[in-house]
């Protein structure tokens, strides 16, 4: 029986178990004064039975799905002739792969010798026995669960508390996923990055001025040896982020001020959602826009002025990224400006200040920490933004301060290094994880500072 059908059968059994448990609770209550003598509502007895039926069986099923290939491979390897088992790990892996291919009927890399054929038959029979045994065990567990719950149901059973306990355990489990995600990110990036730092020293990575990750894969191949100085990537990322901020902060901040201090309700109701559309557009669309419209326009404009603008200039990518970030800055500043108490404004107006004077001398200073926090979040977003720079910024790692030239960024390099063939023993692939680690750490620090600043500021007026 396949895993899917087994799971469906289990679900059906659990549904039946609910009915059985519920009926059982009616039956046991009849002797002691009817349904009112039950500790919990009859449905809870049904749910408890269903849980007893489904939960252990599902756990076994999930465990089997997760570990089946591993166990079967171990057993098959143990059954191989000694001279094959004595092979080094890498060769053994190839043999196992061949056996698997034989089993699934694919083309194998080597000649099929009788030992391999025997191993493949062994593999196939193991899988068959395994799935048969699994079906038996799972169904026995389910039936046993029903039986056990059936026996345990009596009027004093605290069925509701037990069901609620299971549900609460599920809730707790779900809420820990966030922590596991963070741990997963840190571990996955850290391990590969450490392997990278075995072959390339940290100091060279952080301080080196030349980035050229192409390496010769075989010893006899002609190719550069690779150099992993990431400074050009850092400067490129910073330049594009700076250009983006240069566009987004004034426009975002001024539109937030206008919308919250000047605009009437109707204008606000139209303009604010329209601006927020900018935040909902997928970044790949911005990337296409940058490459299709903005970059050629800048190049032609530059040519008209006698400037040499690269067709993948940092300016084009930065400008478009700035447009993307406008709503981000404006909605965050809008929040903090609205959080400034009305009494401060009233006090300022009472002194005869004009609106703009109130904004500049009272509201902005009062909201400054929040605005700074918002800008920091926006910077972190600009640093981590990928698609716009992948499509509109260049690949060449130029160490330059000229925004009209092509630069490359951390995210662009991660994408170029990891799209296509990957080899997890080459520094070229591992470099992407080192860059990912940098990206994660920098954005994490920015986020923590920003969230801290914003929260502290909010508490100030509450």
């Amino acid at each position: 029986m396949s895993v899917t059908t087994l799971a469906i059968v289990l679900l059906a059994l659990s549904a039946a178990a609910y009915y059985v448990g519920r009926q059982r609770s009616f039956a046991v209550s009849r002797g002691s004064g009817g349904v009112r003598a039950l500790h919990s509502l009859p449905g809870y007895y049904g749910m408890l039975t269903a849980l007893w039926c489904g939960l252990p069986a599902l756990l076994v099923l999930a465990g089997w799905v997760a570990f089946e290939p591993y166990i079967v491979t171990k057993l098959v390897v143990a059954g191989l002739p000694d001279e094959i088992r004595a092979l080094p790990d890498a060769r053994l892996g190839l043999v196992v792969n061949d056996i698997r291919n034989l089993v699934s009927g694919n083309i194998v890399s080597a000649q099929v010798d009788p030992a391999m054929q025997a191993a493949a038959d062994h593999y196939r029979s193991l899988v068959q026995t395994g799935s048969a045994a699994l079906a038996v065990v799972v169904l026995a567990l389910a039936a046993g669960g029903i039986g056990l719950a059936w026996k345990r149901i009596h009027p004093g059973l605290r069925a509701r508390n037990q069901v609620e306990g299971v549900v609460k355990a599920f809730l707790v489990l779900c809420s820990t996923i966030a922590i596991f995600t963070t741990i997963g990110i840190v571990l996955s990036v850290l391990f590969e990055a450490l392997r990278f730092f075995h072959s390339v020293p940290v100091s060279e990575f952080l301080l080196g001025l030349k980035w050229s990750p192409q390496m010769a894969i075989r010893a006899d191949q002609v190719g550069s040896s690779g150099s992993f100085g990431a400074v050009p990537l850092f400067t490129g990322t910073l330049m594009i982020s700076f250009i983006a901020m240069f566009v987004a902060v004034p426009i975002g901040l001024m539109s937030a001020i206008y919308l919250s201090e000047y605009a009437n309700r109707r204008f606000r109701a139209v303009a604010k959602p329209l601006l927020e559309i900018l935040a909902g557009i997928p970044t790949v669309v911005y990337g296409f826009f940058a490459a299709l419209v903005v970059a050629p326009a800048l190049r032609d404009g530059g040519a008209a002025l006698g400037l040499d603008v690269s067709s993948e200039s940092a300016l084009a990518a930065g400008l478009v990224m700035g447009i993307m970030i406008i709503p981000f800055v404006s909605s965050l500043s809008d929040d903090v400006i609205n959080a400034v108490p009305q009494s401060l404004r009233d006090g300022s107006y009472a002194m005869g200040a004009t609106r703009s004077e109130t904004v500049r001398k009272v509201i902005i200073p009062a909201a400054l920490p929040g605005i700074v926090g918002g800008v920091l979040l926006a910077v972190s977003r600009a640093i981590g933004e990928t698609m716009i720079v992948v499509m509109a910024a260049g690949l060449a790692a130029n160490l330059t301060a000229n925004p009209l030239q092509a630069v490359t960024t951390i995210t662009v390099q991660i994408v170029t290094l990891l799209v296509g063939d990957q080899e997890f023993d080459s520094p070229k692939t591992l470099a992407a994880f080192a860059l990912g680690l940098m990206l994660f750490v920098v954005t994490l620090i920015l986020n923590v500072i920003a969230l801290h600043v914003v929260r502290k500021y909010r508490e100030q007026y509450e």
Partner: protein
Amino acid sequence: MKNQRAIDIVNASLKRRYAAERRFRLYGIAAIAAGLLFLALLFTSIAANGYSAFLQTHVRLDINFDPAVIDPEGSRAPQALSGANYAALVRRSMQELFPEVTGRQDRRTLNGLVSSGASYQLRDMVMADPALIGTTRSVWVPADDDVDMYAKGHIPVDVPEAQRRIKDLPLSWLRKLESEGRIEKRFNTTFFTAGDSREPELAGIRGALMGSLYTVIVTLALSFPIGVATAIYLEEFAPRNRWTDLIEVNINNLAAVPSIVFGLLGLAVFLNFMALPRSAPLVGGLVLTLMTLPTIIIAGRAALKSVPPSIREAALGIGASRLQTVTHHVLPLALPGMLTGTIIGMAQALGETAPLLMIGMVAFIVDIPGGFFDPATVLPVQIFLWADSPERAFVERTSAAILVLLGFLVIMNAIAVLLRKKFERRW
């Protein structure tokens, strides 16, 4: 009298101050106008580039379904019919239209005016109706992408021949075809029914749409229950201690982690460690689940917070357990808000590209995926792939795919807004 009164000083400066006020106001309007201008520019440039992709140029050919070519043995067996040389029929028909073309090179150019998809179209026609064999029909077949671009006016004809994709000779043939009414623009159904292709006129978004659908289904099936459960736990049950603080800090940080980092996680954990299949919607859905969870959790908590405590107190007061209070009373009231957050999270997932590049969903996949384990790509990644293609016709198709993607996003956001409007409650 030397002593100026304070009011005079103020009055003297008023003009300057009012001017500053007007300037400041103007800056605000200019900022909003700039934002809206960018928005308008973005949409008009995409729409202007993309609308023409919904039409495709077709050429009318008189095809003689010659039995000698299709089925010389007269067996009408499906294998024979599907393996026949239909390209020869197309070539012959073109030759009949332009008998004066003789050179090998010229003939190749002539046959290049019709898409290579024409022979597949003929094959499908014959397979569907073998009675066609032996008859002569006039058939509309798709034109080559250069012809398509010319017909749509994207290839200027008033520049020197050397700078043109279409040279003078094929141009004269095209003019003749046009004058005979053999060229027509028709609705581009291929764009919605075909998978990816290297030939622009045969490329469609169906494969990417199905991939997006499967990916979003996985994302929704995982992130909605987990997100709602997390929100409920944190808002209704969790004690205030270091552990829940840790969870909260984690969620807030994950919301701001760059999406590409989730891609690295997917590559290292799901592909390398758990050995799940590359390019599969399942893995894409898992990665996007982790990415959208914070959005859903934060929205869900806000929705739970907005339910007034009196509801909980009333339920608890008549003897409901805390879980019953939540499932019977709080959750139904908070659900519209949670759904709104989920739809917005799904819209985000639908438009996301970068993490999917990391887990191999950028492969060139012609087949339309039929399940969660098939290699697939998604709509934004398809846009990314097409944006890289040099053919002019792909610019138009990229823009059209963007229009489709934006259409979906608009619909999803509109549903979210409507949901909020309909169920918004002031307590």
